């Protein structure tokens, strides 16, 4: 139909090549940061006796989600230890926590900005659509080219996938703050930052926490895909199970992912509820 073809593939390939060759230092620095975070989380948690860590997690769960979930956490974590997946569990938890930390550092300000500036919001929205729907494998390849195989592209892939819900819900939460509350703050002579930190963010907090919760859940769903490029952890065990047709082994690792997901979900959901209840 057309006498020419729009060379999107060339633009992307060339662009990635250009970035890899010209900005290697930036990517290296980022890699170092991610390794630093993941290693610290992991080493910190592994330094504790499994039982000690279980007690810590159970205590947090008890506070945020009640004794039933705490009991579930204790049993689930003991099971993970029993079937020999404890270090994989800790590794995956470190990866998810690192990705979530990065998600919050980027997502909260972007979400707040999107809520305040309609122009920025209209730019951000299609980018978020892109991040959520573009198949993960498509950006795994450039991620590997930028950061090499291993943990970092795994964290990046998780980050890309988990970021949109936090931005969306932060934006939504702040936009949903009743107009009168903002007017009231204005009427009392609030400055822009007073309005943001004393009214908008606290009032939007339940919605923002729902965003954190959703992004953690989505991050966990990336665990197996991240393992394909060598991110390690539970995903690797699942993958090995699939590749070797060891159904039982794959199932065990998958089960531990679910246990982790439930614990993290209830804890973060508890944050949101606490805020709205008080």
């Amino acid at each position: 139909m057309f006498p020419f073809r729009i060379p999107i593939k060339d633009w992307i390939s060339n662009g990635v090549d250009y970035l890899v060759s010209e900005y290697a230092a930036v990517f290296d620095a980022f890699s170092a940061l991610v390794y630093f975070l993941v290693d610290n989380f992991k080493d910190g948690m592994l330094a504790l006796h499994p039982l000690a860590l279980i007690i810590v997690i159970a205590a947090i769960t008890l506070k945020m989600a009640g004794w039933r979930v705490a009991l579930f956490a204790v049993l689930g974590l003991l099971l993970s230890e029993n079937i020999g997946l404890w270090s994989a569990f800790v590794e995956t938890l470190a990866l998810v926590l690192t990705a979530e930390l990065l998600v919050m550092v980027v997502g909260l300000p972007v979400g707040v900005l999107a809520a305040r500036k309609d122009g920025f919001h209209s730019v951000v929205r299609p980018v978020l659509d892109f991040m959520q729907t573009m198949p993960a494998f498509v950006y795994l390849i450039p991620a590997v080219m930028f950061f090499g195989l291993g943990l970092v592209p795994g964290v990046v892939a998780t980050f890309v996938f988990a970021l949109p819900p936090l931005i969306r819900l932060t934006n939504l939460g702040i936009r949903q703050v009743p107009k009168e509350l903002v007017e009231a703050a204005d009427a009392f002579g609030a400055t822009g930052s007073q309005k943001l930190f004393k009214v908008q963010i606290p009032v939007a907090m339940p919605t923002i926490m729902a965003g954190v919760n959703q992004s953690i859940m989505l991050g966990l769903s990336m665990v197996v895909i991240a393992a394909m490029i060598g991110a390690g952890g539970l995903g690797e065990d699942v993958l090995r199970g699939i590749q070797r047709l060891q159904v039982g082994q794959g199932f065990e690792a998958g089960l531990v992912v679910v246990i982790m997901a439930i614990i993290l979900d209830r804890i973060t959901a508890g944050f949101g509820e606490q805020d709205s209840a008080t």
Partner: protein
Amino acid sequence: MSEIITVRNLYKIFGDNPKKAIQALKEGKSKDEILREYKQIVGVQDINFSVRQGEIFVLMGLSGSGKSTLQRLINRLHEPTSGEIVINGTDIVKLSQNDLREFRRKNFCGMVFQNFAILPHRNVLGNVEFGLELQGVEKEKRQEKARKIIKLVGLEGNEDNYPSQLSGGMQQRVGLARGLAVDADIMLMDEAFSALDPLIRRQMQDELLELQARMKKTILFVTHDLDEAFRLGDRIAIMKDGLIVQVGTAEEIISKPADEYVRTFVEDMDRSAVLTAGTIMLPVKEKAFTGDGPRTILRKIRRHGLSGIFLTDSKRYLKGYIKAKELAEFVEKNKKKEDLKMDKSLVHEAASVERDMPLNEVINVYQEADFGPIAVIDDEQRLDGVIVRGAIIAALSEGYEIDPDNGEPEQASDDEQKPDDQEKSGDAKKSGDAKKSEQ
């Protein structure tokens, strides 16, 4: 009373071409035409009014009349399109954003909203101290102030409760307290009681009036409820299509509506809550004096065809009420007695009301008085006028216009001459007499 807010030639147009819209308004086009032809929404137009220090000024109108827009222009939550808003001598339209913020802190007690707009994540104390916190008042000082105000609005003991634990009325008290905690003159209240159920609303209105008597803020109160406007407002501005149609006291508006719109508007109004005994009373045609004998009194009664007569002393102090029928029987029974004196049993306690009692309460008294005439007395218990059935019915009927002058008592002169009328032995101590008013 000095004027604290003065608004001149204020316009607010929502849309991208306000100049054209103002031009069209000046050419006499209507709000609807401007919306149709230019796609510009007229918020308010050609607004001129002033609010006096310490009064409750009510902006009253139906939804879409521009009352809330006008209120938000006063503290510039909406940017005026043109015009002046002078508050405490400063034209706030000209202030920069920073100066405006400072100005709001110094001059406005924030705002009180229909849906309360208090912060759900803060407890009562945290909400009440909010305004002071924004101003950077140190914690101890602002909490001390907040506790004082919480006590004032009757929320003592609820300092640590969160809004979700409070009833609507209590939440609005928090909203009120949040405003009062700030040391400023002007309080803006936007449909503040409209979300409350009628009993609580009534109670809050009373409390507001009580607080106002003590705090003496200048309150700009927006409402769509005419009863509320008339109850609270020292003066009321009635708005329609972004214009102020009439400004005046409740009685001015109800007795002299500026145009057909206001007239139909106030027709639906519960007139009995606005009109007072002083407005509907009639002058005293005839009264009995404490020195009058029974026959004299009976003559007075018959001369005017009365059913009874109020009794006063020579200084107009109300002493009682005498029924025509009883008096006639008494005179008949004692026909032969030459020097007949008034009998105590003939003098009943007079039903009386003060001049500023609203008509709906007067009606209660009227009922208790067995629908006989009611005396209107001044602060010192002196007889000022009378209220009879005809006056009550006339005042309540729609379309009836009360001429406030009509209610003025005219008997001052009356008073002087009557004492001479006294019958022979004026010393009859308790002989009374009454004067009554017609009906």
